[in-house]
């Protein structure tokens, strides 16, 4: 069985496109919206936790994932594909740490994940990942927000949205974003942007928010301490929601 599918399924169309990647992007655009906003002192990423039915215990569903202490990510698209990438990202970060005893800079980790995703567009018997990722990290060059697509291309963003409502969300962000925005404002803006395309009631259990903020500190012996990525607790999310009428 394996030998019949050892050719690459992502082959070029006459117009120079890889249709499998186009279709993967369709899968991403069918997924719920995710937002990422970079502030002067940190980054916020947010997503809807859309459960299929009210009977689902959504407290155990994790969409915003911590990769290593200074990097976190969120997705739009196929959940199971995302889980695989989260594991690969975590392993890549720890492998870097084994060599250098340091957390990887955001750009380095993003390049690793992007090359994994690209491999699946040029290998035999596999299909591209049906997710786009928003990776938020804080390293010595400051906060950085990246989007990685199923093709393996990545871009740094100041603010962006992916998924179902991305077009409207990005228009909304273009109006409300400015370079001097601080994290508190950014969280507020992220929630408002999610609300634009939200179906149903937005509660602290139906959205997930991850933030990374702080400063790069140095210990006496010269070792560097980076800010930590964390998810907001439901009660913190509830407070932010209360501030939005």
């Amino acid at each position, binding site marked *: 069985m394996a030998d019949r599918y050892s050719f690459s399924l992502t082959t070029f169309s006459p117009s120079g496109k890889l249709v499998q990647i186009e279709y993967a992007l369709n899968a991403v655009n069918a997924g719920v919206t995710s937002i990422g906003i970079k502030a002067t002192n940190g980054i916020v990423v947010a997503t809807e936790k859309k459960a299929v039915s009210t009977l689902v215990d959504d407290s155990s569903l994790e969409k915003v994932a911590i990769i290593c202490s200074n990097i976190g990510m969120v997705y739009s698209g196929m959940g199971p594909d995302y889980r695989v990438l989260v594991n690969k990202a975590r392993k890549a970060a720890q492998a870097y740490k*084994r*060599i*250098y*005893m*340091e957390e990887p*800079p955001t*750009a*380095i980790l993003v*390049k690793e994940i992007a090359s994994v995703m690209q491999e699946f567009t040029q290998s035999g018997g596999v299909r591209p990942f049906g997710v786009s990722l928003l990776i938020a990290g804080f390293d010595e060059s400051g906060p950085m927000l990246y989007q990685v697509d199923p093709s393996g291309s990545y871009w740094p963003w100041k603010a962006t949205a992916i998924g179902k409502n991305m077009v409207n969300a990005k228009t909304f962000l273009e109006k409300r974003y400015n370079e001097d925005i601080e994290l508190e404002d950014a969280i507020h803006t992220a929630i408002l942007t999610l609300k634009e395309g939200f179906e149903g009631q937005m509660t602290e259990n139906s959205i997930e928010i991850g933030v990374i903020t702080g400063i790069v500190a*140095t210990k006496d*012996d*010269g*070792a560097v301490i980076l800010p930590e990525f964390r998810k907001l607790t439901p009660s913190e999310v509830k407070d932010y929601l209360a501030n939005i009428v």
Partner: protein
Amino acid sequence: MEYNGGAVVAMVGKNCVAIACDKRLGVQAMTISTEFKKTFQVTPKTYIGLPGLATDVQTLAEKFRFKVNMYKLKEEREIEPRTLAHLVSSTLYERRWGPWFVEPVVAGLDKENRPFICSTDLIGCINFAKDFVVSGTTSNQLYGMCESLWEPDLEPEDLFETISQALMNAVDRDCLSGWGAEVTIITPDKIITRTLKSRQD
């Protein structure tokens, strides 16, 4: 480790570090070169010293040059001395059951120009020292010399004198090291390398 001979020492001064090595290459008792230096520049502000089996000295110098160049291209910045120390450690431990016969010394200034030195054993155990580190066939003699001569906060010129005296007198008590020495002082503005003429025996 006692086949080719060699000695390396590094010391911390006031906003500077010094690293020094002898220049002998021998095949047991016979000296075959007096120009075999064991310190290598890794970044504009960091040096690595590699005493031990000469073939491994050369190979590891090249391996680290490769790894550091790749680091610089990928991360778009110079590697910090502390990070280099861990890179050296993990590279050596990869060969835990068939080790490289070298005991490296790392000396440099970090991006805030704070001095950093350390040494590792042949399988990668890092010794983070605040004063001095020694390595090679002359290590015992160097420990004695450094312990008596070193004091904290030496200015670059004084540090040069101290490390030179420590190395010269230590290698005179080791038949496998000597035949000249090279001393490098690393300061925030410049790096000064001087060659010392010692007893040629």
